[in-house]
């Protein structure tokens, strides 16, 4: 991207040009905020956004995640038109098939579906035979039952972010890529400036949308954010003719696997022994475990050739739900982080809620469940268990 000279002053500085930072920038500008700068260390979607599994899911176990996801899907359904995008965001709503492997998981999923239905999410419980009708190559020997939500699906992380980026730019937001934030200076009760390798910007409002590096940005202003980062690996196959509509996901078998509209299969899994940190390298162990898991659950996928593997950071919060809000101890410091692997699919609401908060408006949703303060010496109220 052609970079201009960094301005000396800005009303709002957003750190991070992943989907969250771009959505926040767009939402602020759309509501009339001027003089917004987005700083990005590399290029758009270079962090977690561009490394994610490109899934959009509403089947969550906590109320906050369900509501954020549902309202975000409503936006994605109209995003192409709302953002007047000339590319294709590739939103495909062919559902998520969530596999239960045993009785205990099936019971939890029944509870989840009740919660989801009460919030207007059209998920339902399926027998394994019904699941096989939706995904014919499913190996029902390793399936107990399933849940399905037909409005879940796939969305292209690169073009969706590009759509926000272009819409924000048209509204006057300035983006500076390949620019690194080195430190942030503050007084006792306000932010003074953001210092980068390309110059210093005076500002009193900073938005931390730094994904895997959110904790480090917090440390720069002495705000402790209880998150950590962890590598989650993923691979993609050659593109083939369409053979699978929905995303197939199992928490107990540790897999998510979907066919993109382009034809390639994307699949990933976590590793409970993965050390905390910023490493995003690829491993043999992942490849071995991934190929064993996918050929067991979806045997014909074994015939497909892997063409690339990579890793990306989950920014984990203690309850696996995002932190979206301001820091009580430092007015002007806002954050959207700790998404625990699902920041991409929640971005429309992240942007809307945080922009309303920054502009002093009444937020569209109550935000207590997303506040940083929910962790202040308190036990975890509600833990999101539906995470791969």
């Amino acid at each position, binding site marked *: *991207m*052609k970079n201009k000279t960094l301005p000396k002053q800005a009303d709002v500085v957003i750190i991070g040009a992943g989907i969250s930072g771009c959505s926040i920038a767009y939402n602020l500008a759309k509501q009339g905020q001027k003089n917004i700068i987005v700083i990005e260390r*590399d*290029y*758009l*979607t*270079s962090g977690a956004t*561009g490394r994610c599994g490109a899934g959009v899911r509403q089947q969550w176990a906590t109320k906050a995640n369900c509501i954020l996801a549902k309202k975000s899907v409503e936006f994605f359904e109209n995003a192409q038109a709302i953002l007047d995008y000339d*590319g294709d965001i590739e939103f495909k709503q062919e559902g998520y098939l969530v596999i239960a492997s045993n009785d205990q998981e099936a019971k939890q999923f029944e509870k989840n579906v009740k919660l989801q239905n009460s919030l207007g999410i059209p998920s339902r419980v399926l027998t394994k035979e019904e699941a096989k009708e939706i995904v014919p190559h499913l190996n029902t020997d390793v399936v107990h039952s399933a849940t399905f939500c037909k409005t879940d699906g796939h969305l292209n992380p*690169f*073009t969706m972010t*590009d759509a926000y980026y272009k819409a924000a730019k048209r509204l006057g937001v300035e983006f500076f890529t390949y620019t690194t934030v080195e430190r942030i200076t503050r007084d006792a009760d306000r932010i003074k400036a953001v210092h980068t390798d390309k110059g210093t910007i005076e500002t009193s409002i900073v938005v931390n949308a730094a994904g895997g590096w959110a904790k480090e940005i917090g440390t720069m202003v002495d705000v402790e954010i209880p998150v950590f980062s962890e590598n989650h690996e993923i691979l993609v*196959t*050659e*593109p083939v003719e369409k053979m699978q509509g929905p995303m197939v996901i199992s928490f107990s078998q540790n897999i998510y696997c979907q066919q993109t509209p*382009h034809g390639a299969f994307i699949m990933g899994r976590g590793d409970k022994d993965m050390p905390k940190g910023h490493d995003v390298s*690829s491993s043999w162990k992942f*490849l*071995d*475990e*991934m*190929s*064993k898991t*996918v*050929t067991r659950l979806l045997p014909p*996928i*074994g*015939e*497909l*050739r*892997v*063409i*690339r*593997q*990579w890793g990306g950071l989950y920014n984990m919060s203690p309850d696996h739900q995002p932190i979206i809000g301001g820091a009580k101890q430092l007015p002007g410091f806002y954050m959207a982080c700790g998404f625990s692997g699902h920041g991409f699919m929640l971005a429309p609401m992240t942007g809307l809620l945080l922009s309303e908060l920054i502009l002093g408006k009444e937020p569209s949703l109550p935000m207590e469940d997303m506040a940083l303060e929910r962790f202040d010496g308190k036990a975890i109220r509600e833990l999101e268990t539906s995470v791969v």
Partner: protein
Amino acid sequence: MDAKNIIICRCSDVTLQDLYDLFEEGYTTFEELKRIKRVGMGPCQANTCGKMVQWEIAKYFNKPLEDVPFHNMRPFTMGVKLKAIKEAAEDEE
């Protein structure tokens, strides 16, 4: 020859004109082009088009080739069946 008729990336069907259009829009690095247009992301993993993309960036922006970063290469260098990886993993166990 018309840039519209020059195929740069065979896997993802990207022409030279597509690259020019992206350059004009402000996408100037290999990593950005990859993500917006899938150039170099197909089965050959940029083994065919990689050098050409780098060269076209250099020419368009009038930069020495060595100042144009190549794309970040990731495993694999060629496609391998998931089943073959699984069988190899089980053989080792």
